């Protein structure tokens, strides 16, 4: 029996793999399975059995499909392939991982570049990667590691020193946790200056001459002149240091020191609310600073540990819509959010709105269909009312949009399409929470127009009165809305309306303290002169 067969025939394997299929969202089971497979397949080298390799690969892939934000397993996977000499797979895995993280994952970039340093021989090719990383994660508070690597490569691979100094000069302005390291480097470099010509590595010639009044071609005694020039450069360095130190301290004291988890956590280990609050405040702070790239990286950082809740996803999307005005990216973020967040309703709602705004009515339609399918074509009995109610609103909107062209408002009799009406009716009469029914009734009231009062009454109010299966009718809201429907039906005179309320509606109403009080309250506003005729 070869290794592959011995693994798959092992009872332990069946048990572990069964666990992952039964509880696909439980990280623990995946980890055990993976560890078991790696241990069984050791030694991992090029002699690995093809079937075993495929098994491990698919396990990684399945695990990462379920937990796309597990940065370390992406790295693990890539390194696994690297060990086996599959370099192109290695690149592919990292690229895919970065794509999942909106290209903004410090851990991924650093691990990736660390290997690239060794395997990418062409400097231009390597620096292209570094430049890309600079754009996405350069402003990360902990990106000191990245910058150190970058500087080292520049030192090693560049013939001239200019690029090295430009990068170092930029780093000086970034509030990094390890900012002082780079100031140390910079000061050392200043001390090492031997000649006036080297000054242009620290500042451009123009400013050197115009602002610092230092002529690099100075023809007098160059020794003391150079000493003065060094002082001038050190002076602005010191000022820069003070400003950046303050920024770093502020970020550290207010936020960074309070963040305990910087990596993905599965839904089984929810982070404490304080962590969420810190991130929310940190993001508000970042937004106010108005440095777009910093906002992006911080949003992505917050998402990694908090992807299970909707707060950050929504905040990210709102920021993209409000400040960046990038509706497409907001859409991408929201779609990703629907996949990963356990709280989906608000994200779905915003996505629906966004699709409407983008005029992608078909995508909206598909999304709603998908939602319905997710609930086994029975969204009307979906436990979550908010989800259901959002669904209904957008369905009605879609229906309005569809009928408009065909019937052009000539169908006053129906309030909403028959199919949707049935859904509402069904949910209204079934036993359920009062508040939810109130919201539905209120929604139906919003549909009232000059022509349809009668049908709203028949299809909704009368229907509920006749079929209601719980004690909903014993409470005030329904009757209040019912009376208001009549009161706002201006096709009748006031007397007719009041007469109808008193003679037709009230006799059907269960008389209890709550309902009577509500009706009296209504009467006090709208028809106090008839109040005694209520017989309340």
């Amino acid at each position, binding site marked *: 029996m070869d290794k592959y067969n011995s693994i798959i025939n092992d009872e332990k394997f069946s048990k572990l793999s069964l666990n992952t299929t039964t509880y696909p969202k439980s990280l623990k089971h995946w980890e055990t399975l993976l560890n078991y497979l790696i241990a069984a397949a050791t030694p991992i080298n090029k002699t690995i059995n093809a079937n075993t390799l495929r098994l491990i690969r698919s396990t990684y892939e399945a695990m990462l499909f379920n937990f796309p934000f597990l940065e370390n397993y992406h790295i693990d996977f890539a390194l696994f392939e690297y060990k086996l000499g599959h370099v192109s797979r290695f690149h592919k895995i990292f690229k895919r991982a970065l794509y999942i993280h909106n290209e903004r994952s410090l851990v991924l970039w650093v691990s990736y570049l660390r290997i690239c340093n060794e395997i990418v021989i062409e400097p231009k090719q390597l620096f292209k990667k570094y430049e890309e990383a600079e754009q996405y994660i350069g402003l990360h508070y902990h990106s000191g590691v990245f910058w150190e690597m970058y500087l080292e490569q520049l030192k090693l691979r560049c013939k001239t020193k200019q690029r090295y100094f430009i990068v170092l000069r930029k780093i000086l302005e970034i509030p990094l946790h390890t900012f002082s390291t780079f100031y140390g480097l910079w000061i050392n470099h200043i001390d090492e200056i031997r000649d006036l010509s080297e000054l242009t590595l620290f500042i451009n010639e123009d400013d050197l001459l115009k602002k610092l009044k230092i002529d690099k071609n100075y023809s007098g005694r160059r020794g003391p002149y150079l000493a003065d020039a060094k002082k001038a450069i050190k002076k602005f360095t010191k000022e820069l240091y003070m400003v950046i130190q303050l920024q770093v301290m502020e970020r550290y004291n207010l936020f960074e020191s309070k963040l305990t988890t910087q990596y993905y956590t599965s839904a089984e280990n929810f982070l404490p609310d304080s962590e969420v609050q810190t991130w929310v405040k940190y993001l508000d702070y970042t937004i106010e600073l108005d440095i777009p790239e910093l906002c992006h990286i911080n949003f992505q950082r917050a998402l990694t540990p908090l992807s299970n809740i909707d707060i950050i996803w929504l905040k990210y999307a709102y920021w993209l819509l409000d400040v960046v005005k990038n509706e497409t990216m907001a859409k991408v973020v929201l779609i990703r959010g629907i996949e990963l967040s356990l709280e989906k309703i608000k994200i779905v709602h915003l996505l629906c709105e966004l699709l409407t705004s983008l005029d992608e009515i078909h995508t909206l339609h598909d999304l709603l269909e998908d939602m319905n399918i997710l609930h086994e074509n029975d969204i009307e009995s979906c436990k979550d009312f908010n989800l259901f109610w959002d669904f209904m609103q957008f369905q009605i909107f879609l229906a309005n949009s569809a009928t408009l062209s065909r019937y052009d408002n000539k169908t006053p009799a129906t309030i909403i399409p028959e199919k949707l009406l049935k859904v509402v009716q069904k949910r209204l009469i079934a036993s359920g929470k009062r508040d939810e029914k109130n919201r539905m009734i209120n929604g139906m009231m919003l549909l009232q127009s000059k022509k349809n009062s009668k049908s709203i009454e028949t299809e909704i109010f009368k229907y509920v009165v006749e079929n209601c299966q719980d004690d909903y009718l014993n409470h005030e809201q329904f009757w209040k809305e019912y009376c208001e429907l009549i009161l706002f039906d201006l096709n009748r005179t006031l007397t007719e309306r009041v007469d109808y309320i*008193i003679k037709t509606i009230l006799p059907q109403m269960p008389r209890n303290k709550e309902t009577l009080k509500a009706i009296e309250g209504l009467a006090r506003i709208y028809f106090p002169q008839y109040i005694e005729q209520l017989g309340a």
Partner: protein
Amino acid sequence: MTDIILIHQNALAGLDPAFIKENPEFVAAYSNINSKDIEALNTILKAVDQLLKRYSTPNDKIKNAVEIIFRQILSRYPLLFGYWKRYTAIEYQFHDLETSLKTLENATESFPHSIDLWCDYLRVLTVNYPKETELIKTKINKAKQLIGSQFYSHPFWDLILDYLLKTESDVIDLYYEIIRIPLHQYAKYISSFKKLLSERRLNDDIKKVDAIGKENQIMVNQIWRFESLIKQNYFNLTPLPSLEIDNWINYLNFLTTKHSDKPQLIRSVFQRSLIPCCFVEKIWVKYLTWNQSINTKQNLSELHDLVQLYEKGCRVLPQTAHEFRWMFVDVLEKKYTSCEKSGRTLLFTSFCKCIKNMIEIWPYRQDQIKSMETYLRMLKISKYYSALDTPSKELLSQQAAYTKYLETSINNYISDRVDHSIVLEDLINDRNLDVIVVELIRTTWLVLKNTLQTRKYFNHFSKHHTLRTSVEFWAIYYKFEKSTKNFVRLNSFVSELGTNLLLPTSFINDIINDYKIFYLLNSNITEYQTGKVGPNSSHDLDSSVILDPIIEIGFKINNPKWTRRAPNSGRINKTDAYKSLQYKENGHPGIVSDTPQITNTIIDRQSKSFKNTLPGLPTFRNLEKINQTGNYRDYYSEDILNSKQ
């Protein structure tokens, strides 16, 4: 009205300048009069005493001044029985017995539950006017009603017994009456009664008296638990200790639950409690609630008494007493619909008076808006009553008259031509104007069904400054536009919320949440997309930006001042962003700091973009403030304290 004139009258006005010069203490005491401080009142009393010592035969001017002073104090605080006594004595000194008796009589009317004053009065009456038997009899009966059941009323009963014995009337009936009352000195009357009976050898009666006495003893023992805890049973301006109040309340609870068959006694204890506790709303509420529970009959004189009692409570209680006043208004409203025609005038007059008073004393409270609503409701019930069988035509003309009346009043108020003789116009102020406007609009829209006129009203009134911030007004406007499904108007209304229309955030949130649903349910994609690129589209950047009702409007929730930012650049005025308070407080709300910044920062530039030339010299802002500590912003004093000045 006379009260007001009296209170504002200057008692010293008629005095000679020479007299004023000679009596500085008296003048000072009067000018330092403070109706809330008992010490200041006592100082005047002393000053008056000194004055009268110096001028043993004062002239008319002095007499007049002293009388005015007493009348002023006693009209404000009729429960100060010591002042009444002093006033009576002075009146006797100034004039004659008759005047002083008249004063005492006034005292018993103003402070009808005082044993002291009644005893004084009856004593003077019986001693000096023994022939006025009819008058004495009526007065005695009246006093019996008012004070006879009080726990310490034995001086009064002694006086009556004494008088009856002197006039040789039979006292047996009276004794029977007395020994049933739980008095502090109940035993005294039993023994003297028994003595009288045994003198007359009425042995059966003695047994009866014993039985009654025993029963009464139990009662006295029961109430003694409460009576013994009463430390202060007279009126004073200093607040009563809460223990005392609690004791009264317990006492009353005990009586009303355990001895509800003794209304006379209960009433008497209520009346007594309201002497020291006359500023305690709880007891007033209790009294009136109890009173209504036992008086279910609907005759006019009882109604009159009830209204009077309420009015007295409203007069006496401090302005902070809301419950009692609202209880009164509720009673008036309820009684109005159920009572006979004859009582309606009384009720309506009292109602108007009460509402007027409430609007005056609560200028900044929600209560006064509620008062106006109540007034309009009552107005509709009383002056524009209709039944279901009222013919449509009649009803419409009646309602048209009602709206006309409202409109005239509103317009007169707005154009500052208020006619104070018209009750409604007299009641309108800036705080409750919206109630009437909303009522006018509601009637025009829903009853008269005049959409055109309704819109005219909206256009007209929305310009008025107090209505611009009125929740009620905009709520009905929103409702109206919803009913017409006018998306253009609705969109522009919702867009203006928080920026042009400053309304409470919670209200704005409600409207927006409602509108978002309304829009989805009633609009469609074509309407939406054409609205977006229409003339007032999202690409317009003037002040009246119309927001997109599906996405953008949501940004206003909990952030009503939200406005669309200019595209691309993020902030509208990026260069000045650092000057904003929000920026200065970023990360540490409440602490304003001018953080140093690099003004030509290169962090958002790619290092590659520098080619091979190094960046220039960094430039700074606020570098000199690097060691400055942030300013703590004291919002409390800034926003609250300063705004009051």
